[in-house]
């Protein structure tokens, strides 16, 4: 607590930011509720506990990455390489186990380490060489995917031991195992963002990076930490994904970056930085996954579903930005 009072900026941010943010999330949650009831009315199998938990299972891999992505976007950055890190980590998990002969737990640790290292590399170049995050992570999007394909030489790794499938396919107390992982990650991220100096620093950087630097905040170190965290979570997501689909392929995680960013932005995090919450991201994630699922169950075909998701994204962004303009006009 005493550490927080030393920093003047976050207190100002506290007064302005959460006020309308709360409105955006409440609104989004309300839309989600209406969509849930509507889709539930159209298809009796939609609002079953079984289906909803299963959707939680399917959204975990994207969800795990969306949490650190919220941190990054709050600082005004972006990480487009997460999908490729998923591919690289998946391949290295399989390869270190099958080809290098690591015991599987060690292989899991190794692939997580590689994920963190990949994120660290992003962070170090972004902070030290001052390459914009967009450029750097577009570059590593290609680089990490290329590494995944080069290392694997297109060989899939299969035949993992039975215990490894637990996290991807089994239930724990009636809830999909990976959903527990996601729930813990959500709670931890929310506390970090909302209740710690570290979290406040993220908003400060996003609002005005120069001011944050002059206030003595460790801007570079914080950025390094969140990009590394992003890579680590992408590695974790890769382990969950491999366990769920029981095989390792070099094309895993292609396009994840877009799903992740869509969820974060839909959840009210501003791409310009300074604004956003974990709860918004969670609602955004749930919204996209349940819309896709509900529409599919109602008989809407695959390509039409994508159109609807796109329209919802545009609409909610419109509403959010007009709301923001109203607040600022007052």
């Amino acid at each position, binding site marked *: 607590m005493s550490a927080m009072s030393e920093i003047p900026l976050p207190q100002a941010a506290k007064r302005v930011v959460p006020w309308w943010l709360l409105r955006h999330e409440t609104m989004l949650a309300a839309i989600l509720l209406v969509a849930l009831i509507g889709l539930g009315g159209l*298809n009796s*199998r939609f609002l*079953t506990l*079984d*289906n909803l938990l*299963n959707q939680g299972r*399917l959204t975990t891999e994207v969800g795990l990455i969306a949490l650190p992505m919220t941190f990054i976007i709050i600082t005004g950055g972006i990480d487009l390489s997460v999908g490729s890190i998923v591919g690289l980590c998946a391949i*290295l998990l399989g*390869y270190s186990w099958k*080809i*290098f002969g690591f015991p599987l737990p060690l292989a899991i640790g190794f692939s997580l380490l*590689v994920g963190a*290292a990949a994120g*660290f*590399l992003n962070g*170090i*170049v972004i902070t*030290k060489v001052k390459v914009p995050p967009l450029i750097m992570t577009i570059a590593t999007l290609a680089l990490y995917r290329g*590494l995944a*394909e*080069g*290392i*694997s*030489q*297109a*060989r*899939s790794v*299969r035949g993992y031991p039975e215990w490894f499938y637990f996290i991807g*396919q089994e239930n724990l107390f009636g809830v999909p195992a990976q959903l527990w992982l996601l729930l813990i990650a959500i709670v931890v991220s929310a506390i970090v963002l909302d209740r710690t100096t570290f979290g406040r620093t993220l908003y400060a950087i996003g609002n005005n990076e120069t001011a944050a630097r002059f206030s003595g905040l460790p801007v570079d170190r914080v950025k390094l930490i969140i990009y590394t965290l992003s890579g680590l979570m992408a590695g974790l997501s890769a382990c969950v*994904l491999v366990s*769920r*689909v*029981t*095989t390792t*392929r*070099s*094309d*895993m995680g*292609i*396009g994840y970056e877009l799903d992740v960013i869509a969820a974060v932005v839909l959840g009210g995090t501003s791409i310009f930085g300074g604004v956003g919450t974990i709860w918004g991201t969670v609602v955004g994630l749930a919204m996209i996954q349940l819309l*896709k*699922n509900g529409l*599919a*169950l109602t*008989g809407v*075909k*695959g*390509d039409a579903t*994508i159109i609807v998701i796109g329209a919802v994204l545009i609409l909610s962004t419109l509403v959010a930005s007009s709301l923001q303009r109203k607040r600022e006009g007052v």
Partner: protein
Amino acid sequence: MKLGLAVAFLGATILAGTASAADKRWDGADDLPVNPLACSAGEANAAPAAKPYDGGKPTNAADKAGKPITLVDVPKLIGIGYFNATTKGMQEAAKALGNVTVKTDGPTEAKIDEQIKFIDNYITSGVDGILFAANDPVAIAPVLKKALSKGIHVVGYDANSAPDAREWFVNQAEFNGIAKAMMDSMAKEAGEDKSFAIVTSTFTTPNQARWIAEMWAYAQKCHPKLKWLETVEAQEDNNLSFNQATTLINKHGDKLAGLFGMTSVATPASAEAVTKAKLCGKVAVVGLATPNAMKPYVNADCVKSVVLWNPVDLGYAATYVMRAVVDGSLKPGATSVDAGKLGKLNVVNGSEILLGSPFIFTKQNIKDFDF
């Protein structure tokens, strides 16, 4: 310092990757056992030993023998000519049978994760049967097993899954048969001691990987002097396939005497690249493709042989097989199944139903086909 460490680490990873990849096998081939056919045309291989049924079984499936059923078809992706043709076959079969409804729905890109989600959603929404063409034989298995456990019948076509994750698989043509047709055509058109390259979808796509593995085995046995340059990936993407083929032509120059197209997208794109480079007659194009896409190149004498089966028949057969499974007329241990206008199809390899031998389209016969 830290940057140096990270670079050193990445470098080491790359080295480790290339070292472990040192392999004499062709790129894009899988590691499963191969079974090349005999070299000469007339000489048939000994029939494979009869294998017991190795497919799966649904739990407590509802008895719908002779009753109307609703099926969903989840191909690798939707919106390409090949799967439009299988869909057409399914609709024809549904009409002929009269008590089957089939809907085709699937991802717009050939992604394992997306395909799994589609199947998962159809399990929840409730169907009597699922027809699929797998993007990955192992990745798709858990969700298919889930379908079986919920009493839903599962039949594959075009690209198989692990056998115990589905009941039957309708095999369009055996891998070694396709491989033989492809390699024999290439040796005849390009020359026995020439070099060729391959344009495939991705190295992890099961069918293409299997064909390349069998082509490698058959070439070693029957055309040992053919030289392989490289295999390139081009997804199932028109533009990318054309670009990759053009790159191969530019890169290898006179050395390149032949191009294999491993997908219905890569083959016409390769033929287009050869046409654009004005190398018709100098670079042979042999590949898998649908006749309509290849007619311009075959008629212009740029392509001599197109290898395929009839995908309309494939979809048709898959639907009849599903109906027979639901009716209980196709049981484990059966040796053949009735497939409407296609007659009786034979069971091979435990739980696979063989559509027939591969078909080679040439200038003489390609005009008779429209799909």
